[in-house]
């Protein structure tokens, strides 16, 4: 699972997701991408689950890029603990996603395979998504 190697602070504020993605909103590496349509949080486990689903659906062909990184620690209090006494321990890592963000990209597969792979991958994520394709000529036989 993805997580930072080093962080300056162990715990972070909860934060809110406002606005649309101003960066990372266009295809950079691959021919097809999975774009977020609503704001939300994606944690490291969801990214890994989606990556596996996409890679499996592509049957070892093509290539996958992950364009998001979970760098926000989320803390949780243990069960049956009263409020107060400080913030809980870091539990998992997540990233805040703004609408328009390209989360995954693939290349080296057909549009049909990419659609199928992204449908399986998107099912692991907690936000609505859509598949986008690069406008251009691409690979011609």
């Amino acid at each position, binding site marked *: 699972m993805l997580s930072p190697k080093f962080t300056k602070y162990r715990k972070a504020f909860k934060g809110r997701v406002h606005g649309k993605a101003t960066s990372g909103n266009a295809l950079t590496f691959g021919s097809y991408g999975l774009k977020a349509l609503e704001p939300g949080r994606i944690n490291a486990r969801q990214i890994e689950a989606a990556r596996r689903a996409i*890679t499996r659906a592509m049957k070892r062909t093509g*290539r996958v890029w992950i364009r998001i990184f979970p760098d926000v620690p989320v803390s949780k209090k243990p069960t049956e603990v009263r409020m107060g006494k400080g913030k809980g321990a870091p539990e998992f890592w997540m990233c805040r996603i703004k609408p328009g963000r390209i989360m995954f990209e693939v290349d080296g597969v057909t549009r049909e395979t990419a659609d199928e792979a992204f449908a399986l991958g998107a099912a692991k994520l907690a936000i609505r998504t859509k598949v986008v394709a690069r*406008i251009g*000529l691409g*690979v*011609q036989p």
Partner: protein
Amino acid sequence: MSKQTALVVEPRERAGRGAARAVRRQGKVPGVIYGGKEPPTNIALDIRELAGAYERGGFMSRLVEISVAGKAQKVLPRDVQLDPVSDRPIHVDFLRVSPDTRIQVAVPMQFTGQELSPGIKRGGVLNVVRHEVEVYCRADSIPERLTATLENLDIGHSVHISNVTLPEGVRPTITGRDFTIATIAPPTVYVEEVPVAAAAATAEGEAAPAEGDAAAEGGAAPAEGAAAPAAGKEPAAKGAAPKADAAPAKVAPAKGGGGKK
């Protein structure tokens, strides 16, 4: 040379955010035409017409014939701003050009001969480093595409700009190095994670023949090798022990909490 596109536009009186939004509410896209030693002109285009031209591909490297208030002029699209979520155009920039203007433009790459590439046949993946290549050329001779062949390319081989035949009068903006356009990368090997129980069973299975070998040979070296997996098993056994103790440990604080009350 790339084909020309014709777009019908109308002049836009007011500039600014509010005026642009008003234009968008009417189903049009605000834009601007600049360059050619003339003052910039604000325009508005029909969104369907522009989106259709843009989504056909190669829009940014194709001359556009625009007529504003009856005056026809040749322009080159320089920027199309898209809404990040809906991917619909929200603004477009055009540059006035004359046929002999030398311009810098990004031309899309096309890759052919995929079936003739031994690397791709063996499962390699075409890793496109540059989907577009920036070139200098005359405005009336912008190439529609640059074609690179993948014939005889094996895994690990690359296509460089020197392998691409450029039309006459076209030269890349990057000079001084033979930059890479695409490579044939080895396929991504997907490693299935072995469950912990299965891994332990495998380790035990491996350890047994190793010990057997050691006994048969009677050598010191194999005996040491056999000891390593046995040592590896120990942490697993230790790891299992706290799990069994975990339940009582959880109960203890609850009891303590009750005592405090």
